[in-house]
């Protein structure tokens, strides 16, 4: 596709359930990022994939959060045993490995934990 695609666009779940959020980056982009955006706040870095290197997981808030990426394509962010404080918009972004290449964001997944 022409841009970063995320699915679902909205997800409502019950506390304690697991959720999976999907990101399709721009074709050919080697770097992929996940960010979280709580209501009325800025974006918080979660995790970063670059090519075949080990991901930078330094932003994951707890061990309930994990992410995988298949090669240089689709990524899945998984949240286990969801809590109400996990409610937020989860944004995915990708970029190429060229110097000064900018991030291109998807529209995000709005997660609501009831």
């Amino acid at each position, binding site marked *: 596709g022409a841009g*970063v695609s995320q699915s679902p666009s909205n997800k409502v779940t019950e506390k304690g359930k697991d959720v999976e959020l999907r990101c399709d980056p721009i074709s050919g982009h080697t770097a992929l990022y996940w960010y979280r955006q709580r209501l009325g*706040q*800025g974006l918080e*870095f979660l995790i970063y994939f670059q090519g075949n290197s080990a991901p930078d997981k330094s932003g994951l808030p707890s061990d309930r959060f994990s992410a995988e990426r298949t090669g240089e394509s689709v990524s899945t962010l998984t949240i286990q045993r969801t809590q109400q404080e996990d409610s937020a918009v989860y*944004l995915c972004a990708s970029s190429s490995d060229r110097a000064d290449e900018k*991030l*291109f964001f998807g529209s995000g997944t709005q997660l609501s934990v009831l």
Partner: protein
Amino acid sequence: GESVGLHLPTLSVQEGDNSIINCAYSNSASDYFIWYKQESGKGPQFIIDIRSNMDKRQGQRVTVLLNKTVKHLSLQIAATQPGDSAVYFCAENKDFGNEKLTFGTGTRLTIIP
């Protein structure tokens, strides 16, 4: 701790006027700064960036100013249009070579027709 913050959470500007959105940062190690625009229901969109070895950079209708002495960043939008209404975020990068950014809270800009 290190953070990026904004002085004003909301700003209303008459259409056609110029607007200035301000941002304060506290990490002197940051060497790259970016402004993003986020419209309702969409992801952030890159507007303009600036490196720490510059103090001004201009784009189309936008100018970013960097004052490293007081750790201040501003975004100027000239001749504002209704389509400029959005939330604007500043972000900083301490790790050259990736886009692991620290974002501010955001300023909501409303253009009054």
